[in-house]
């Protein structure tokens, strides 16, 4: 072992000025964890308020600021960077047999942008905040909002560029730095989903950038683009905003799907069923995902013909997702299963993703959406995907690659307890919300009809279980850094290049340049498992 581990060099400068993708990944991990808890605090405020039908904890305006803070922080500063910037950065070079990302300095710069944009936004949200919701609909955000709209917009704008640069880095890396023999069809599926995510990052985020510029210009100069008095059109804002924000939700879910492919194959010690289908389905989700944004505007006054088209396309986008779910299930069939903690998170993902995905189809149906739009049904739908599935994917990745990243093993028992608590707490929190939405409770209201109280109390109770479950890893994962057993090179006996380098990996990932002559997920008995 000639190279020191990447964690060897000490001191603040070695971290803050690093170009090592692994260190940058750890920096991102700390950052997104911080924002997760900030957004979670806002969520706690919301759920506590909603225990009683009256608006007694927060004023209506205060409640608006709470859910805006929650949405803005969670979407842009936790979910979007979570898996791509943490696990993407750490794993992409290693999985393809490279020494680092294509643009190491750009990588570090991206982190600073996220941190800067995020702190700025958080400050603005705390110093009075914004009441527009994370969706910034006009004309509230441009003409009537009395909050720090401009400051929040600036922060999000900066974070957007962090996303774009991360996407550029990943695509360039996967194209040009694959080791000899690492053909496209031998790549781990995590790479395919990171690639598809990066396409969305690069192509959708600029539209958000211009939308934010226009909102800022409207706010500052009243240019009138979204103001009907001057001939502007509020619906145009929604077109531009959702053109980015719908693909953005695929940014949030595709990486988690890639993670699940890794977790399922590792737990089952079996090749993925239908590699090509799963690989191309990631690309298909990215492509079709760009064509469905109008389903957020069915009741906003959008043309009926456009709504028809968007509804149809929204049904189509479910197909590649379903393909993945079927292929994962087929992979598990007759596999040699190990029920470790990461696997429990993967199962959580699949179950909750299916519920979220199917309820998305309900909403894609024009007639049903008329009834369900802006109710808790929608809230439940997207939380099933973004929290139930995506956060489970993040936690699964955390539990799977923690030994590789830190070189320590954690308590499997506590990991499994966390997974089960998350599954139970999550369902208790969000399933009642489907019922609430169906019964007609509107979203973004701080007070509600007393008939809804029972379900709301159930939901808040579930949220407190979730809160405990989310805090638990702090103890056993951080504790493992001090007291955990040292991790072997391949604690899960998984396939993949990252499981053939030391835990934690050496500075330049590999002791010698790698040549690949094996297929992905090679779990055959003759497969090589020796360290590289």
């Amino acid at each position, binding site marked *: 072992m000639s190279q020191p581990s990447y964690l060897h060099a000490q001191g603040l400068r070695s971290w803050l000025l690093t170009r090592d993708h692994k260190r940058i990944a750890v920096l991102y991990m700390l950052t997104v964890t911080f924002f997760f808890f900030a957004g979670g605090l806002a969520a706690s405020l919301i759920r506590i308020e909603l225990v009683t039908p009256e608006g007694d904890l927060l004023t209506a305006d205060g409640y608006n600021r709470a859910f805006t803070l929650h949405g803005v922080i969670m979407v842009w500063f936790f979910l979007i960077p979570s898996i791509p910037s943490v696990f993407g950065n750490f794993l992409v*070079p290693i999985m393809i047999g490279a020494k680092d*990302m294509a*643009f190491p300095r*750009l990588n570090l710069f991206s982190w600073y942008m996220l941190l800067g944009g995020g702190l700025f936004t958080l400050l603005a949200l705390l110093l009075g905040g914004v009441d527009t919701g994370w969706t910034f609909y006009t004309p509230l955000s441009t003409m009537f909002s009395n909050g720090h709209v401009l400051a929040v917009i600036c922060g999000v704008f900066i974070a957007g560029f962090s996303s774009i640069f991360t996407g550029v880095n990943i695509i360039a890396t996967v194209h040009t730095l694959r080791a000899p023999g690492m053909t496209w069809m031998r790549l781990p599926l995590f790479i395919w989903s990171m690639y598809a995510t990066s396409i969305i990052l690069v192509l959708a985020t600029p539209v958000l950038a211009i939308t934010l510029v226009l909102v800022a*210009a409207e706010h500052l*100069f009243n240019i*009138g*683009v979204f103001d009907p008095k*001057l001939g502007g059109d509020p619906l145009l804002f929604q077109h531009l905003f959702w053109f980015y924000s719908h693909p953005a939700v695929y940014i949030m879910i595709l990486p988690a799907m890639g993670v699940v492919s890794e977790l399922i194959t590792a737990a089952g010690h079996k090749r993925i069923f239908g590699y090509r289908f799963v690989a191309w389905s990631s690309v298909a989700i990215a492509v079709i995902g760009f064509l469905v944004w109008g389903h957020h505007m069915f009741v906003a006054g959008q043309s009926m013909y456009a709504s028809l088209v968007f509804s149809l396309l929204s049904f189509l986008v479910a197909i590649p997702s379903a393909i993945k779910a079927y292929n994962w299930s087929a992979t598990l069939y007759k596999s040699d299963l190990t029920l470790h903690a990461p696997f429990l998170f993967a199962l959580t993902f699949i179950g909750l993703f299916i519920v979220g995905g199917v309820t998305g189809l309900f909403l894609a149906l024009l007639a049903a959406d008329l009834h369900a739009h802006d109710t808790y049904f929608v809230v439940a739908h997207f939380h099933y995907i973004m929290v139930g599935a995506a956060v489970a994917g993040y936690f699964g990745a955390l539990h799977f690659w923690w030994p590789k990243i830190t070189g320590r093993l954690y308590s499997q028992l506590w990991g499994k307890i966390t997974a089960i608590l998350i599954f139970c707490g999550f369902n208790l929190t969000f399933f009642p919300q489907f019922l609430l939405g169906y019964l007609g409770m509107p979203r973004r209201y701080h007070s509600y009809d007393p008939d809804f109280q029972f379900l709301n109390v159930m939901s808040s109770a579930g949220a407190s279980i979730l809160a405990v479950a989310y805090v638990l890893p702090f103890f056993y994962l951080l504790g493992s850094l001090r007291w955990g057993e040292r991790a072997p090179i391949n604690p899960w006996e998984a396939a993949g290049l990252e499981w053939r380098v030391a835990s934690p990996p050496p500075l330049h990932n590999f002791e010698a340049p790698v040549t690949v002559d094996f297929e992905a997920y090679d779990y055959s008995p003759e497969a090589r498992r020796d360290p590289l």
Partner: protein
Amino acid sequence: MIRSDERPAEPFVAWAQQREAARLGMWLFLASEAMMFGSLIMVAWFFRLRYPDGVAEAVAGLHYLLATGNTVLLLTSSLLMTLAASEPRRVRRCLLGAAVLGVLFLFCKGVEYGLEIHEGVLPGFTDHSTWQAPSAQLFMNLYFIATALHGLHVLIAVGLVLWLYSALKRRRLAPHQAAMRLEMISLYWHLVDGIWILLFPTLYLVGR
């Protein structure tokens, strides 16, 4: 095999590899910039289709001949950037020429804005009573935002070209590095020009 002392940057093992990555990275960035301006151009067409009369009123007041001159400046600068790549002995001269033309573009744009402030049609400097149709003011505002954003990109491009010029003048760059930077900055320059090529007729020419 690398025969010179110049090594490609980590983590690349060959110049061709690094060049290809830089090219791909720059093209992706260009694609994202094109998305941004493409959306803006689409917004302009959105309002053109809705309010043909109001827009025509605004367009009639725009200084299209000055803008045509500006277009010629940008097209010529793109020519110079292309020649910089194909004529190694004239690189610095071509770069300087392109930068000068870029600065001239910005100067003329400033003159144009000055005229428009004087006429009272620019947002922030207007009293709203100049137009018959409110959508005319809307289009003027859009014109301002779009050209200002584009102008900002021209400024950045000029900055990049001058930075390369000075690095080449002081012989601080190795040959591979210089060629790569020239290629990347040229790509960026041509995109800024390309955006103007579509923005100019959209704002100034159609429906005069």
